[in-house]
């Protein structure tokens, strides 16, 4: 059993973060349906409190070690040796913070947009928050799976109930794609559990050695779940539909946190538990990543729907993330993790922005816009920041992430690096063209009478702007969290399966 740092904050911080929103959702049940104002304020309060509680993670985290911190451990189902164990390391911590922040913005952006079944909407939102945080905190594979799947229920409702015209199709597609992937992973989890002497403990599982053939099978079983979530080419087709049809808050959650879970899954499970298979499968993963980068980008050029365009850009950007992860070197991995955060911030912000203008015009067609810059100058300037960050302009966060990934990718395979770099050019193409069509050119009469952003909307976007420049100018605040954990992970990937058998052989030799 590896060393862990137990939580020394005096209260179970991770459990609080998971269950405070869930308890908030339960309390929402008691508020009468007609008091919508109270429901909104209460949800906002819960999400802000959750965010404040998550701040000590940021300040108290020990960056000098890779071991799990803030660990909580309780017996849960002793018959199957399943424990309720939570903890964070440098890979997962940023996502917890991102989740708690993004939910506040989701509440704010939905303030006036959600008009039907308000109560159910905020209940679903809070349950999603609890489950998301649970996914990133779980140190028990079974617990992880519970949160991973439990999130499907509220997400399905968010898309299907409050989404656009084609929402039912999108919601069912989202649910079925994810479920098929997840159940295959479940079989993999059970096989792993039985092979390793009935333990679901992630730390313990990542320290064992598994036969190569088994690793390969498990790798593809996990791949089924994680690749769908990322989403990697060719199982990405649910994403444009889900993103497009979801309400703004749903799109933001999908873009900012939910699709990060797939990449997180690769980092937390595939790489450390199955190092040999991961190494062996690197070429395949790199090809899929590069295809996603270029294919996603080219498809963007043909989109006429604002949200669909951003959705396909997510496919392209997540291609960068998986490329970085499977470069299997320090730059690639750190770039990949940072780019996950960046993509969450930038794409989240873009969806928030689209939501702001959609609330006014109720159209997502790019052709219905034009000349918005002269009508909404403040909005236009913020949108330009997000556009440039999405392209990866230096001094924005996108640059740091993509630079590290291309560096890592180039080190691992020159062609991957070169091809990925072309993806950035395509990205500049579709984003700038989008900006031009929406904000410049002749003012479309449909947008002529729009008023600029109000205070609530500015507050919603402001944190994203701050983070874009913070990471862009001084990334070390965030990279500092992951150095040790990433080093440890790379150690494991490169040496895993080598030490183990040697020791085993020695023991067998001694016994003979």
């Amino acid at each position: 059993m590896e060393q862990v740092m137990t939580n020394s904050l005096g209260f179970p911080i991770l459990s609080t973060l998971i269950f405070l929103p869930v308890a908030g959702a339960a309390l929402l049940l008691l508020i009468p349906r007609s008091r919508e104002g109270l429901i909104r304020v209460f949800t906002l309060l819960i999400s802000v409190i959750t965010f404040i509680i998550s701040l000590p993670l940021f300040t108290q985290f020990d960056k000098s070690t890779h071991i799990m911190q803030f660990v909580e451990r309780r017996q849960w189902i002793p018959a199957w040796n399943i424990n309720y164990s939570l903890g964070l390391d440098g890979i997962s911590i940023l996502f917890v913070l991102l989740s708690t922040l993004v939910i506040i913005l989701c509440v704010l952006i939905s303030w006036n947009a959600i008009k039907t079944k308000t109560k159910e909407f905020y209940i679903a939102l809070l349950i999603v928050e609890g489950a998301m945080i649970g996914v990133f905190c779980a140190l028990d594979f079974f617990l992880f799976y519970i949160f991973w799947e439990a999130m499907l229920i509220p997400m399905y409702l968010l898309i299907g109930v409050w989404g656009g015209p084609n929402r039912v199709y999108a919601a069912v597609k989202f649910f079925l794609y994810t479920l098929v992937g997840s159940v295959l992973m479940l079989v993999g989890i059970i096989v792993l559990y039985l092979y390793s002497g009935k333990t679901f403990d992630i730390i313990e599982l990542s320290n064992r050695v598994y036969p190569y053939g088994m690793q390969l099978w498990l790798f593809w079983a996990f791949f089924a779940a994680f690749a769908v979530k990322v989403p990697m080419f060719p199982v990405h087709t649910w994403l444009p539909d889900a993103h497009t049809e979801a309400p703004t808050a749903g799109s933001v959650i999908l873009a900012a946190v939910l699709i990060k879970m797939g990449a997180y899954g690769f980092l937390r499970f595939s790489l450390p538990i199955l190092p040999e298979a991961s190494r062996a499968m690197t070429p395949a993963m790199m090809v899929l990543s590069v295809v996603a980068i270029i294919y996603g980008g080219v498809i963007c050029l043909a989109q006429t729907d604002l949200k669909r365009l951003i959705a396909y850009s997510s496919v392209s950007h997540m291609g960068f993330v998986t490329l970085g992860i499977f470069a299997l070197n320090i730059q690639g991995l750190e770039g990949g993790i940072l780019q996950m955060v960046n993509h969450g911030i930038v794409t989240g912000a873009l969806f928030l922005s689209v939501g702001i203008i959609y609330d006014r015009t109720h159209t997502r067609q790019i052709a219905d816009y034009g000349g918005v810059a002269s009508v909404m100058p403040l909005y236009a300037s913020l949108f330009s920041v997000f556009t440039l960050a999405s392209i990866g302009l230096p001094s924005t966060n996108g640059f740091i992430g993509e630079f590290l990934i291309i560096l890592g990718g180039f080190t691992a395979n020159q062609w991957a690096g070169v091809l990925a770099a072309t993806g950035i050019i395509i990205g500049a193409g579709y984003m700038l063209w989008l900006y031009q069509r929406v904000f410049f050119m002749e003012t479309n009469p449909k947008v002529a009478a729009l008023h600029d952003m109000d205070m609530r909307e500015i507050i919603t976007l402001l944190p994203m702007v701050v983070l874009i420049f913070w990471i862009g100018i001084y990334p070390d605040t965030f990279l500092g969290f992951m150095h040790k954990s990433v080093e440890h992970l790379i150690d494991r990937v490169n040496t895993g399966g080598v030490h183990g058998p040697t020791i085993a052989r020695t023991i067998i030799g001694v016994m003979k």
Partner: protein
Amino acid sequence: MQFMMPDLSPLRPEIIMTVLSMAVLLSDLVIKRKETIALLSIVSVVAVAFTFKDSLGITFNGMFISDGYSTFFKLIFVLNVILTVLISIKYIGIEKVNFGEYYGLILFSTLGMMIMASAGDLIVLYLGLELMALSTYILAGFIRYDVKSNEAAIKYFLLGAFASAFLLYGTSLIYGLTGTTNLRAIADYITQHGLAGNPALTLAMVFLVVAFSFKIAAVPFHMWTPDAYEGAPTSITAFMSVGPKAAGFAVMGRVLLYALYPIKPQWTPVLIPIAILTMGVGNIVAISQTNIKRMLAYSSIAHAGYALLGIIAGTADGLASVMNYMMIYAFMNIGAFAVIIMLRTEGFKGDNITDYEGLSKTHPLIAAFMLVFMFSLTGIPPTAGFMGKFYLFMSAINAGYTWVVVIAVIFSAISAYFYLRIVMYMYMKEPKETVAITTSPSMGLALAITLAGVILIGVLPAPVVNLARIAFP
């Protein structure tokens, strides 16, 4: 010849159950309020449940076994009675069949199930099975003026009679081969005389499997299920989908893993295709249903397929997972049927899937209950349905049937489509007409119990799992 009185204490629950069932049946003569009879029947089964604890033992020369295994199943039967009665009280009034015999028959049927669970002998097994089945046939046709209910009863009866014949044929073959009908003696005889590869024994085994497959509604012996489930009074559909199925699994486990364990290599290849077909047909045909009772009938077929995985595993864990699953299935399925019954009002059947359109708007609480039951039937955590499936899958993989489990999880993902369709109708469509619902305190209680069961076992499965695990000797 000296007559020794056998030890009757293991039989105590069954004896008390018989007495109380008759009392409930006779009370119909003097008690005019049928609700009182309903209450009496609940009190009776609870009283019986209290005798489980110190009834452990084997009696009548091993013909009757009362152990942890049978007791666990009997708990499921008791639960089944309580929940069925709670959802019936108002409903049978609406269907205009508010007769006292209804409760008596439920109790007799349950007595049959209890005897099945405890059977240590093929003859005792047959006795219990017939008592259960005959009472259920009548219950299925309880709405006498309704053609569909009559159809349900006659189909169930005819095919059930076939199943009984198969069972008897199998029993007689086994008796011919081994000279005994006692389960333990059969196992001993097979091992001692090396009968393992005997074709006649294999044939007998196949006959028994066919008979049990009828009872648990496994494909290709499921033909009666959709019609019987659709036509029977909804409360009885709920009762049938849990009780006889659980009893079927109880005897299946006892016979296959006890008497016929020596020929496990012969029965596993028979059961695996049955399980795969059951999951496949159940889940795929359910997709195209427009009547929710028929849909749940196919769903119940599919769930029998999942549960068969535990029997196929053929280990103590496998059996425990089947027991665990049946308990969980009782909660989630009766819960779903409770919601269906609430939509039945005077002059409105409420069993079409389209009747659920916009239910979340008109009756948000009922819709939320249904949502939980549907997700539980799909097997999405944190509901009990997931824990049940997980245990089944785990024990099957542990026994080396990973490929069967892969097929099972794929079908399980397919099943999400039709369960989610109900959720979709409730939450994502606008109500066309205002659907009235029937409420009553007893219905509320039933919903509360089932919901609590689904959520509690989903979040804290340890107590039930432990109970199932220690139950197996």
